[in-house]
Structures are given as C-alpha cells and as structure tokens.
C-alpha cells in the first residue's frame, strides 16, 4: 500500500446523490483511499490516492502518476528525468509548465504540487490534501 499523486481525466459517474464528476483514477479498482481536486474546467483532477497496486492505474493513459518522490526534495535535486516527466504530464492535461518558474523558481517538489493545486483551488496546500 502506497500513496501517490496523480493527474487524471475527469468523468461523470452516478453517485449516491446523482450524476457527479469524478477523477477517473478514483473510480478504478484497487484504490483504498483518495482525495480529488477537480479543476473548474473539468479538464483534469489532482489526486492523491492509496492503492495496493499502482501498475493497473498507471496503465490507463487517462491517469498519469506524478513522480514518487518526497515532497521535500529540492527541485534542483529531482533530476532532469523527473523534471521532464513532470513537464510531459502537465502538458498532457494542458497545464502550463510555467508553474515551475512563475512567479519564482520552485524550491521543492512540494511547491510544484501546491502550484498545480492552486490552479484549481487558490487555497490549496499539500498539507491539507491527504488520506490514510
């Protein structure tokens, strides 16, 4: 069991209170716990989830897991491979990669997640986006 951040396509499902928009990755089997933040446009959702096996989730191209790194790792220490992968993931969902550098260069991986979340919810913080 491990938690990981995802960006996911948003789909409409039948919930207990009627049709609702939900991150596709949270509708798939094997997810034990998760929280989602839907972008108002419906183009994407930021998710953190706890699953026994992420392989099947990652296999769905509508879901893109974000680098499985400590949030405290410095941006400069993440390595170019992880940085490029983040860029491609963001581009896939139409999220501007300027979140890395504007208004200032991010300090740590946490800041990247924070800035992505704040595109959907201005008060978003990774400190208040978690499951157990």
């Amino acid at each position, binding site marked *: 069991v491990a938690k990981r951040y995802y960006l996911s396509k948003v789909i409409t499902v039948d*919930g*207990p*209170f*009627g049709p*609702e*928009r*939900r991150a596709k990755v*949270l509708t798939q089997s094997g997810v*034990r*716990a*998760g*929280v*989602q*933040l*839907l972008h108002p446009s419906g183009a994407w959702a930021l998710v953190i989830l706890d699953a026994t096996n992420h392989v099947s989730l990652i296999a769905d191209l509508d879901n893109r897991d974000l680098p499985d790194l400590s949030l405290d790792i410095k941006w*400069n220490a993440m390595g170019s491979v992880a940085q490029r992968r983040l860029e491609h993931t963001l581009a896939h969902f139409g999220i501007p990669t300027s979140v890395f550098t504007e*208004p*200032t*260069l991010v*300090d740590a991986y946490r*800041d990247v997640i924070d800035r992505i*979340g704040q595109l959907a*919810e*201005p*008060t*978003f*913080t990774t*400190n*208040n*986006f*978690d*499951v*157990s």
Partner: protein
Amino acid sequence: MPAFLTETFTVTSDTALSSRTSDSGHTWTLHPNTSSGSILVDASTDTARATTTAASIYYSSATPTNADYDTQADLVVKTVAGITGVCARLSTSATTYYTLLYYQTNGRWEIYKAVSGTSTLLGFSSQTLTDGASYTFRLECIGTAIKAYVGGTQVISVTDSSVTAAGRPGVVTQLVSATDTTGMHLDNLSATDVGGGGTTYTSTLTGAVTLAGTAVKRTGRLLTGAPTLAGTVSRQTARALAGTLTLAGTLAKQTARVLSGALTPSGTLSTALVKLLDLAGTVTSGGTMTRQISRVLAGVVSITGGIARLTTRALSGSVTSGGAAVGEEIGDLPAFDYPLSLDLNGPRRVSLSQGRKVELG
C-alpha cells in the same frame, strides 16, 4: 470549546426526529429538499435511524458562532446498510453542505460537498465495519480545510472553498430503512465551535488581524489580509501571506514561506528566523537581524543594523545592510540572468554553486 449542540437521542418512546428537542435544547427540521425523508429516534436503542430509503437530511436549530466547527457522532452499526452521516455548513434552504458519511455500497467513509444540489465527492477512505460495533466519526470544517476523523484518527483531509457560510450542523441518511436491530444508527451527536478562544488558529484569513496583546503561537496558513501586531509575537507562522505584516514589537520567531507583501518590523529581530521561500515584497528592519534565511528573494531586504547570518539561496533583488554582515552566505544562484546587487559594509563571504559566476562592483 464547549459544544453548541449535544444530542444523545434519549427518549422514552419512539419519536420523529422533527419532534425531538436535543439535550442542548435545539430542534430538528427536515430539509425542504428532502421532503420524502424520515428519521426516527428509537426508544429501545436511544439512537436515530432512517425509516425510509429516500434521502433524509435534517438540520439543527443550533447556530454555530462562525463557519469553523465540527460535527461528531457515533455510528452504531446494527447491520451495515445504506448511507448514514453528519453534515456541516448545511443551508436551511438550498442543498448546500459538506457531509461525512459511511457508504455501505463502497465500504468507505466519504466526504461530499453539495452546492445548490450538485454533489461532488471530495475524498474517501475505506474501512470494513463490523455489525454490533460503534464508530465515532467527526467532520471538521475550518476555513477551507475539510477533514474527516474516525476513532480520533484523521482519515481524509482536503481543501475546498465552495461552502463558506456557517449554516447548521445536520444528519443525513439514504438507501436504508433501518429497524431497531438493522441498519446504521446515529448516537451521541455534538457540534463544537473550533478555532476560537485564547489561541487563534486561522486556516484561511481574508481580512486583517490586529493583535494588541501577545500572540504566543499564531498560525495563519493562508493570509491575504494585513495583520498588524502591536504586541510580542513569540512564534508566527504564515505560509502564504499576500498582505503586509507590520510588527511594532519584537518578533522572536517568524516563518513566512510565501510572502508577496511587505514585512516591516520596527522592533528588533533579535532571534528572528525569517524563512521566506518566495518573497516578492520588502523586508525592512530598524533593528538588528541576527539570522535571516530567505530562500527565494525577489524583493528588497534593507537592514539598518547588522546581519549576523544571512542565507539567501536565490536572490534577484538587493540586500542593503548598514552594519556588519557576519557569516553571510549566498548559494544556489539560479541559472537566470537576475539583476543582483549587494551593498554590505562589513566583511562578506559569497559561496557559489559550481558553474555560477558573480561580479562584485
């Protein structure tokens, strides 16, 4: 803080919830948008249970002081069935609220928001419930921080700003018509104001704060107003500050991770730790700054006294000190062509990462 609503559902005969007065003296009203709903207070169990599978939402007449409060109850599991939960910030007219409920079909605790009838799942956490057991669960709403606790353990934490009005605490059931021996019942419900009292805890603050006294510990996670502190602040944490922070007294410890406004302490920053990850504003100190850490500095730091230790990892603004700078260190200058100026009267030491270049005039 004492609970402003307490309800043990203790009755001598079966009573419709809408006819019930809580232990704290408050009444329950069936929400107008769930007019087919029905919840009964069962005299044989002293619990509340659904008597219809239709959605049932009731709100209490108890009024919270503000929108920051929690709603807690015991989920008494006779048999696991349907949906049972509590609500907070429940509008008495619109279908607008936050709810924490247990949903038998999915086998998990779920937080939903409803805004004018449109429901959205915010988060969930799986748990297999046992027939005959009881589970204490709590929905906490503080600013935009919406959290779920089960058995005292936080299981869901999410940020949402859709429902800001205080509304009322409430209860919800659906998809189950329970009996005294079946279904999921509610017991020991309470609602408590949080965030008030002698210690201020503000998750999201959009107004100004003025403190005339001492703030022993103050946490403003997301602060867009302009706090003015006339007294001493022994510990101040503002993660995101868009306004101006003005201090007339001493700042013993200050942590501002993201500061886009100005920090202007007129007193001494004798033991101050200012950790400014992203600073777009101005820091001006009339006294001595013994330790200053600014990781990403786009603004201006002006110190009329000495700087015992200054660490700036990425500096695109300027630092001006009227006194000596001892142990000054600048590292990790980004690979951008930032304008950079340093004007320090005292001794200086500049450490640069490999491949970086700096010209000192």
